[in-house]
């Protein structure tokens, strides 16, 4: 749910009060810094329109950022967010609420697919615009101090923005990995008590481990009596793959179910014999259809063709 997304990120990035305090110490954001910025709030408020106009003019001038500003609705939303962002710098606060708002801004930018380079570049531009404003309005000494405070807070924000992006990326990697893992072991129920696992692609140790776990879990859950493993789509059957298959067979047998290995091409048969791997304990068939027939036989059923 979008409404709770930023709180979700708060938890994921472990941004509790202690963490925020620790960051503030590291970025050297003292209470005086916040006070100095808060004193500039009236100035910021009177010049908001001008600063944002300058900011958007600059965004529109660059082709990389211009393409994100095609949709008027997006532009309106971004303008509102930017207004809040800009004034937030002069709120004189750096607490949980502030961090939450910064994360919301980060998530919004990540959502529209704005590359991080343009995002970071925008912070630099903000500093330029704010610096110009502050130098025009404050005596040199005061301007320097305020600019240091502003820089500290903007860097604090940048760290949050980068982390939001990284968290979003690692989340999507996690989702993809889960999807791939699920696809790598598609166990299908053929009949009551008969499961089929068609294996496709390369089988390495990590995948073999996953296959073993899934197969055992499914056999146990479904109280299956026969597990058919079809290896017609397996790219290479070498000693290791044969070994993994034998282990799976042994484990499935310990549960009390039989394993039938199908999809054994002449090539694979030759390899297995040449390698000297003994898989004689397993039921093997060349064609999947024969394997299914054997499975039916093992579960006390048979295939009939035609009429009644």
């Amino acid at each position, binding site marked *: 749910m979008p409404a709770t997304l930023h709180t979700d990120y708060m938890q994921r990035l472990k941004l509790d009060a202690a963490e925020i305090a620790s960051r503030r110490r590291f970025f050297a954001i003292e209470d005086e810094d916040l006070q100095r910025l808060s004193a500039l709030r009236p100035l910021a408020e009177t010049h908001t329109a001008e600063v944002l106009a300058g900011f958007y003019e600059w965004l529109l001038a660059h082709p990389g950022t211009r393409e994100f500003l095609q949709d008027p609705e997006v532009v309106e939303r971004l303008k509102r967010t930017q207004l809040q962002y800009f004034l937030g710098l002069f709120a004189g606060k750096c607490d949980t609420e502030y961090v939450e708002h910064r994360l919301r801004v980060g998530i919004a930018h990540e959502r529209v697919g704005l590359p991080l380079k343009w995002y970071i570049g925008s912070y630099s531009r903000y500093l330029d615009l704010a610096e110009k404003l502050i130098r025009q309005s404050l005596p040199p000494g005061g301007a320097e101090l305020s600019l240091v405070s502003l820089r500290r807070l903007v860097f604090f924000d940048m760290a949050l923005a980068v982390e939001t992006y990284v968290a979003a990326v690692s989340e999507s990697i996690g989702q993809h990995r889960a999807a791939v893992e699920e696809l790598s072991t598609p166990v299908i129920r053929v009949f009551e008590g008969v499961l089929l696992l068609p294996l496709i692609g390369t089988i390495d140790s990590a995948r073999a481990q996953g296959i073993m776990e899934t197969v*055992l879990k499914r056999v146990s859950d479904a109280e299956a009596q026969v597990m058919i493993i079809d290896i017609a789509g397996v790219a290479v059957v070498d000693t290791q793959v044969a070994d993994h298959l034998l282990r799976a067979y042994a484990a499935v047998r*310990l549960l009390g179910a039989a394993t039938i290995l199908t999809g054994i091409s002449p090539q694979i048969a030759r390899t297995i014999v040449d390698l000297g791997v003994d898989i004689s304990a397993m039921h093997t068939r060349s064609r999947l259809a024969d394997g299914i027939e054997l499975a039916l036989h093992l579960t006390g059923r048979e295939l009939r063709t035609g009429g009644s």
Partner: protein
Amino acid sequence: MAVPGVPIVRIGSALLCVFQSGLSDRIAEESQRQLLAQIERSGATQVLLDISSLDEVDTYTAHVLVDTADMARLMGARTVLVGMRPEVAATLAHMGEALVGLETALNVDQGFALLATKRARR
């Protein structure tokens, strides 16, 4: 101190031996002794070893189970190991403990169904 064995229930011509979690080597050995004694006394021809409560089975226990089955068979009782958990099976297979020669079934029901078949299948 006497070591308790495991509950052994007689059902018809079968003995159902239910192992419980926290099985130690000594309990496993004592169970084996009691089971063999029961086979002798009752003349049972079938044995079910139910290990569905065990969340781990080490190499030693595995060997005791295989030996028990071999011994029971020598005394004329066909033995089936039932209810092994997936994680236990995975661990044993990884350790190369295939419990060769031991008949297995998913649960007690299917164990009885297997015993009803004429001869031992591989």
